[in-house]
């Protein structure tokens, strides 16, 4: 009789139970630790994304083809009706064309008179990539694109489709990047109405229609208003189109996203550098900026 008092199978069962319970506990600890920041095993995530982007790029091709097939069939079925609507739209917009050109000329003149910085917030360079996999599950709405640090993509860069804003970069690997979509639960974007310039925050809720929160008091929001990025906070450039307003029965607002109009394949990334907080700039840079500002003032005065 062994001195342990119980036989080997029993000991083995206990050993297995111990391992099972330990692994379950590890899972629970990871779940609790990672649920807010999603920063655990960051290197592992990036490596997985790099591997996934290559494989998904290959296996997603027939899926995109199938989606395009349905999309094309839908377009063909509605071609006549859409054509009629588009013709009416073109007629309506022709009258606006002259007004817009006139206004553009006047604005340009005013900007010159006021010596304003008339450069657009939108960067001129674009990085083209392909959304190789989209995860629109019940827990997360994100996408994997096949460009990363190799193309100078940075965390925070805005990602666009031909229809509108898609999301922003949350992590970059060597040859892949993870995009947090606008409708993800943890997505928060400062937006404004293009018509009334009222400010709000677009809050993702894991559905196709994110909601507007923190709508500024006394501002005018109406159904059909175009929603664009406000550029507040300096994280995203101003003026990226997002969607249109839908008013709910309880008078709350949600946004019909433009990017959901058709399946997403090709995207482009704006390499936008967020405006740094002055306090966070190194002292040398601050003093350089001050010197250059003083020089500019002196130069203007002498002129």
């Amino acid at each position, binding site marked *: 009789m062994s001195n342990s008092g119980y036989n080997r199978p029993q000991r083995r069962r206990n050993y297995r139970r111990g391992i099972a319970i330990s*692994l379950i506990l*590890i899972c629970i600890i990871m779940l609790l630790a*990672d*649920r807010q920041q999603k920063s655990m*095993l960051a290197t592992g995530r990036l490596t997985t994304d790099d591997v996934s982007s290559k494989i998904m790029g290959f*296996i997603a091709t027939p899926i995109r083809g199938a*989606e395009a097939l349905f999309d094309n069939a839908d377009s063909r079925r509605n071609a006549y009706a859409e054509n009629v609507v588009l013709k009416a739209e073109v007629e309506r917009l022709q009258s606006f064309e002259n007004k817009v050109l006139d206004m553009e000329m006047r604005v340009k003149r005013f900007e010159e008179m006021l010596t304003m910085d008339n450069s657009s917030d939108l960067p001129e360079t674009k990085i083209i990539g392909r959304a190789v996999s989209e995860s629109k599950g019940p*827990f997360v709405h994100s996408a994997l694109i096949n460009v990363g640090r190799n193309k100078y993509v940075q965390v925070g860069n805005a990602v666009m489709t031909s229809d509108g804003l898609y999301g922003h970069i949350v992590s970059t690997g060597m040859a892949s990047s993870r995009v947090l979509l606008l409708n993800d639960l943890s997505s928060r974007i400062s937006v404004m109405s293009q018509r009334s310039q009222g400010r709000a925050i677009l809050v993702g809720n894991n559905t196709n229609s994110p909601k507007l929160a923190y709508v500024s008091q006394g501002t005018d929001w109406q159904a059909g208003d175009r929603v664009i990025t406000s550029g507040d906070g300096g994280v995203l450039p101003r003026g990226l189109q997002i969607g249109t307003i839908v008013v709910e029965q309880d008078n709350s607002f949600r946004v019909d996203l433009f990017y959901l109009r058709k399946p997403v394949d090709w995207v482009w990334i704006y390499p936008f550098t967020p405006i740094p907080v002055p306090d966070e700039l190194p002292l040398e840079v601050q003093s350089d900026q001050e010197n250059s500002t003083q020089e500019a003032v002196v130069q203007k005065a002498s002129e």
Partner: protein
Amino acid sequence: MIQKKTVSQVQSISLSLQGLVIGIILVFPALLSMDIGRVNFGFSFLPIAVIYYWPRAASYTWSLLCVFLLGLFYDMASANTLGMWALAFLVLFIVLDGVPTVKKGFGRTIAGFTLSLLFCLIIVLLIGWISMGKLPPVGTLLLNAIASVVIFPVIYWAYNVFNIIRGPSEAFGVRE
């Protein structure tokens, strides 16, 4: 008992690792998301098929570890909170371990898979609730579950083809 004698320790560990590799392969189609019209769906529950078909003769301890790693890989690849799928897979694996191996035929197999999937769905729903702080959209989860069940016959067929190629082997039988 015959099984324990005929399968060496190396073979049983190898079977666990095979399960892990096939599971990782199945993770990629599970990451796919399709937009047909206004409906979006994916095959999120597809990797459950591997746990359902996990080799009976595989080392239990190694299998636990492999299932944990599979879940962790799925969490990382799908950008989910770490531990969510790992916990769901582990619990499912532990529960399925005691299931009697009598199910045969397509009907019973798909019924067994659907039950496993529903069990996993409930676990994932609960974990998601705790993790996100609000109940995940049940409709989306159900749609993904249905899509996974619809695509399961392909895996059933692939598994049977694999069995025909490999030939009958009691030792390498699976927990059907």
